[in-house]
Each structure stands twice: as structure tokens, then as C-alpha cells.
């Protein structure tokens, strides 16, 4: 039972990171109906900007000496960096193709992804970097041997806060209402006086800053980052988004958590050899019974 609790916490903190990345996939899909394959690499850039910002603020004593305010400052800094990146990517790479076939823009996204990965190797170097200690990792409490450390809790709490903020933005602000309107129908929304370009830019900024937060939280928990981490984490987050129902924000969060938990339990109780096979197997089974994902709504094609 104690082992189960510990594995559950492990799974939640892994799942939170998947969930944060998945939110970006799902929002951009909701608005533009296209999978931004470069999103995983924005996550990687987020982790690296955290790495360099830590040096910039010259507090990067690799062991201790960390303060909560510094960590928050770095988190926000890297969210800003990635917002700018997301905004620029959309303007340069995707906007000119908005009226081209979906396949063109999809292939462009793959190109942008490769550009960021190998550009990253060129700029940052291919060897893994040791992510600085932003927060001291203290043992919070111990339930009969199941140690709970602060970093896993920080990951879960920060993700939760960001998701709540996102929910408030989407449901309760004017921009959020505009986003939902655009996701229903571009043309009608623009007829109602909504500036589509602005809404799309905003969506990219929002998604990219969440990816940056995921990058920092990743570095906090797994302090080794390299320019190719975005590939596998991006893919897993994409799966999480599909699992929860792509286009649905709550679904992405749920999908991320489910994927993280399943992976942890499979590696912990069965064998990590089957981890991905079983995780993806579950995805297939869910999609067989609910083709739109767990919380996805059925789209009616009008003829």
C-alpha cells in the first residue's frame, strides 16, 4: 500500500508535466485544427531558457542557496521567452500558410520542430546539461516509509495553479470568449468583429508559456536536459491530448495525468520494457470505444 502511494505520487508528478505540454497541443488544435509538432521543442527551449536564466541571475550555485522568489522569477522569465518564441513561430512559419492545405502546415510544423532540435544542438551543444537547483528538495513528510519530497509536490501544485489560471482566462475573460468563438467557427467569429489574428497569436503565447513552465518543472524534477528531450515528451503529451479528447482543455489535463500514472504503474509493477506498449495500447482501446477521446465532443460534419 505504501509502495502504491509512492508510485501514485511519482505518476502524478510525471503526469503533470505531460498535462502542461498537452494543454498547448490541445489549445492550438482547438483554434486552428492543426497539430503543432514543434510544441515539444518549445518545451525544450523553455527548459534551456531556465538553465541560462539561472546563470544570468548568477545564483546558479548548483547545490542549494536557492530561493523561492528566484525560482518564480526564472519560471516567469522562461515563460516570457517561450511566449515570444511561440508568437514569432506562428507569425513566420504558420500564418503565411493559413489558407494552404492542412498537410502543408503540418509538414512545416515538422520542419520547425527539426529546426529547433538541431539548431538547439548547434547552439546549446549536444551533451546533456545539468539543470541548476532552483529549489531545495526537502522531504516534506513520510507516511510509513513513503517519502514525499517537495519537488514532486511543487510540480503538481504549480501545474494545478497554471491550469486554474488557464481555465479562468478561457472561461471568464473577453479574450477567452473570443478564443472559444474562433474555435467554433473562424468566419462567423470574424463577422462578429473578432480579430482572428490576435486570437491566434494569443493562443500560441498561452500554449508556449505553459510549455515553458513544463520545461522548468521538468528540469526541477529531472535535472538533466538536452536539445532532444522535446521529441519524446512532445509525443507523449500529444498522445495525452488525444487521449483526453483533442481540442478539450480539461481532457488534455486528464489525459496527461492518466498517461503519467499508467506509465509509472506499468514500470513499477510490471516491467519498463512494456511501458510504452501498454500506455499506447490503452490509448488505442480508449479510442476504439470513444473515438473523440475521453472528453472530446463529437464533431458533426455538415453536408
Amino acid at each position, binding site marked *: 500500500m*505504501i*509502495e502504491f502511494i*509512492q*508510485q501514485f505520487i*511519482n*505518476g502524478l508528478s*510525471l503526469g503533470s508535466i505531460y498535462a502542461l505540454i498537452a494543454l498547448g497541443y490541445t489549445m492550438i488544435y482547438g483554434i486552428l485544427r492543426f497539430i503543432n509538432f514543434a510544441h515539444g521543442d518549445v518545451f525544450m527551449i523553455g527548459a534551456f531558457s531556465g538553465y541560462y536564466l539561472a546563470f544570468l541571475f548568477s545564483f546558479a550555485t*548548483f*547545490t542549494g542557496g536557492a530561493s523561492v522568489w528566484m525560482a518564480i522569477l526564472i519560471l516567469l522569465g522562461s515563460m516570457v521567452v517561450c511566449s515570444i518564441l511561440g508568437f514569432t513561430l506562428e507569425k513566420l512559419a504558420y500564418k503565411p500558410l493559413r489558407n494552404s492545405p492542412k498537410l502543408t502546415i503540418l509538414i512545416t510544423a515538422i520542419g520547425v520542430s527539426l529546426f529547433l532540435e538541431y539548431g538547439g*544542438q548547434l547552439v546549446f551543444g*549536444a*551533451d*546533456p546539461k*545539468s*539543470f*541548476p*537547483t532552483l529549489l531545495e*528538495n526537502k*522531504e516534506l513528510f*513520510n507516511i510509513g*516509509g513513503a*517519502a514525499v*519530497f517537495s*519537488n*514532486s509536490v511543487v510540480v503538481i501544485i504549480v501545474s494545478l495553479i497554471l491550469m486554474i489560471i488557464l481555465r479562468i482566462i478561457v472561461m471568464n475573460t473577453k479574450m477567452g470568449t473570443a478564443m472559444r468563438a474562433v474555435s467554433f467557427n473562424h468566419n462567423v467569429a470574424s463577422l462578429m468583429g473578432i480579430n482572428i489574428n490576435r486570437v491566434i497569436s494569443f493562443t500560441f503565447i498561452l500554449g508556449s508559456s505553459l510549455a515553458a513552465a513544463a520545461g522548468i518543472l*521538468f528540469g526541477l524534477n*529531472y*535535472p*538533466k536536459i*538536452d536539445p532532444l*528531450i522535446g521529441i*519524446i515528451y512532445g509525443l507523449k503529451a500529444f498522445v495525452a491530448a488525444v487521449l483526453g479528447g483533442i481540442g478539450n482543455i480539461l481532457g488534455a489535463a486528464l489525459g496527461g495525468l492518466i498517461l503519467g500514472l499508467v*506509465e*509509472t*504503474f*506499468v*514500470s*513499477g*509493477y510490471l*516491467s*519498463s*520494457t512494456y511501458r510504452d506498449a501498454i500506455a499506447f495500447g490503452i490509448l488505442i482501446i480508449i479510442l476504439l470505444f470513444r473515438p473523440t477521446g475521453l472528453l472530446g465532443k463529437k464533431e458533426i460534419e455538415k453536408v
Partner: protein
Amino acid sequence: MKSKVTVFITLFFLISVMISSCNKNQDNVIKIGQFASLTGSEATFGISSDNGIKLALEEINSSGGLLGKQIQLVTEDNQGKPNETQTVVQKLINRDKVVGIIGEVASSRSKAAAPICQQNKIPMISQASTNPEVTAIGDYIFRVCFIDPFQATVMSKFALNSMKTKKVALLIDQRNAYSTGLAENFKKTFVEMGGEIIEEQKYSSGDKDFKAQLTAIKYKNPEAIFIPGYYTDVGLIAIQSREIGLTIPLFGGDGWESDKLTEGKAKDALEGCFFSTHISTEDPNPLIQNFIKKYREKYKIEPDAYSFLGYDALMLMADAIKRAGTTDGEKVKLELAKTKDFKGVTGNITINEQRNAIKPAVVLEIKGGKFKYKETIAP
């Protein structure tokens, strides 16, 4: 029309001059090829051994070269990928026409290159691939390091006698020939010597989350964990094992050897852990200390085991060519097989019938992020 002919003739002359100058070069040098992971996540393996090889190259060339010619080292980067390795080794043999090949540290990449060298009858010396299957590929494939069954015996002995641990858990990199081979051998010898393997977990190199496996290990209550992986993953494994409250010592093989192992948080997490390797830089042997001095002067950094092994690999290749008196692959191969008590910086090298080097191993302890000599275990 006339101008076209002139251009053609000029080009023809230029090309023929270039070809003849190439030929001239080829007469004066002996080309030895190297494939190494100079970039990619295991780059320190390739860079360290490349530094050692270049040191040997300088020494040979400045003291008159080999068979009256200078050695030219042709280095190819395989980015740490087995399929890239096959491409670059083909290139070394077919385009650069090297007479011998040195490489590599990682067993999986050496295994990718060996069949090509064997097929083309080009002798290959691996500096640090410890998986037994590497030299079993053919009679042109040699190595200057010990092999995994021996390394496994060393670590089994060490775990039982020095660490006093009887119940050990394994954490194996399932995608890595070195790791699975070493684990297989360790399991066999450790159980034979009276130890007990109480849990076996796997990961894939490049994974970032090991908490699930480590938590499963934790609740089996082992006394130590044997992790036959590479430094790229071991650091993260150590950090995460401490994060879930596992405080038992970790130990592993020569794949841990890199100054990047103890970077950042891993420094504290790995305190008091052990690994077996080829050499200790604290060894007072003048041959070793002399090498360290030269290495420091040239590169301004500290050598690791792979620098020493790289040096020995090229030295042995040169020695065999000298003994053979020719660069003919078949004769060089015969001389390599006859190597006995070759004085290398990693100890005296004798090549056995399986084309492996017989030599002792050392166990190092990690203290304050540095590798401290613990003990030597003879074959």
C-alpha cells in the same frame, strides 16, 4: 569552341596534378582510421579517447614515425549512433583506404563496425568495448581492455567482500549491449559466489524518469543496487533514488567513468558509490604519471580511463605494424595476435586466443565528486 577546349585541357591538367599529389601523399603516410562519438550525448567517451590517441600519434610521429613514414590519423564522428558508425567505417575503409581502425568505447558501436572491418580484412582495435561478443566477430578484431565477465567477477567480489552486501538489486539499460551483457555476467558470478539478486528492473537509455523502477526496488529492501549503465543516465538515477528515500550505495562498471557523472546534484547523490574501471590516475606508476603530465600540458584537463586506453590502442596498432614490417592487414593481424607483455599505460597487455587483453581492474570510490582509488582486483 576553341575556348571550351582550352578550359577542358586546363581542367584536365589541374585534376591530374591533384590526383598525382594525392598519390604522393599516400606514399609518405600510413593512414589509420578512428571512429568515435565526438558529439552526441556520450561525447565525453569519444573526446577523451581521441585526446589519448592524438597524444600517441604525436609521440610516434615526432620520434621518426612508423616504417619510415608518418602516421596520418583519419577521424570520423559517429555521433554515438550504431547506424552512423557503419557509414563512417565504410568511408574510412573505401575512400580513405586506412590500414587499421581504432574504435570504439561503446560496445554497441564496436559491434556495428567489426563485421565491416572483418569483411575488408582491416585490423580493428577497440580501446574500451568490454562486451565479449565484440572480438568474437572475427580474427581481425582486437581490444586493449578487459571484458565484461571479468568486470562482473570484480564487482561481485567487491560487493561481497568489501561492501559486505549480499542482497543486491539490478537496474539495467535494456537498449544497451554493454549494460545487458554486464548484468547477465554479474547475475551469474554474484549468485555463484553466494550473493542474492532480489530484484531486477530495466530502463532505456535516454529515459528521464526512473522513479517507478527505483520505488519498486526500494520496497524489496536490497542492500545495494548494481547499475551497469552509462554516466549519462546514472547521474539522474542516483538523484532520483535519493529523492524517493533510497539511501543504499549504488555501484557499476566502467560506463560510469566521466567527469560529467558527478555534475550538479549528482555529486551528493553519488557520494560513497563505487565503480570498476581500467585505471586509477592516483596510481604512482611512473608510466601513468608521465602520461598524466603530458596530457595535462597538452589539453589543460584531467585524463580519464578512455584517454589511457585510446593511447594504448594506437600504440599497439603501431607496434604491430612495426613488427609486421608492412601495413598488409593479414600480417598485421597475425602480429597483433602474438602481442605479449606490451608495455602500455594501462598495464602490460597480453592478447589471448579470443583477442582480448588480460589485465587487472581497479575499483574507484566517489568522494566529494572525485574518483578515489579503492582497490585493484587481479584477473
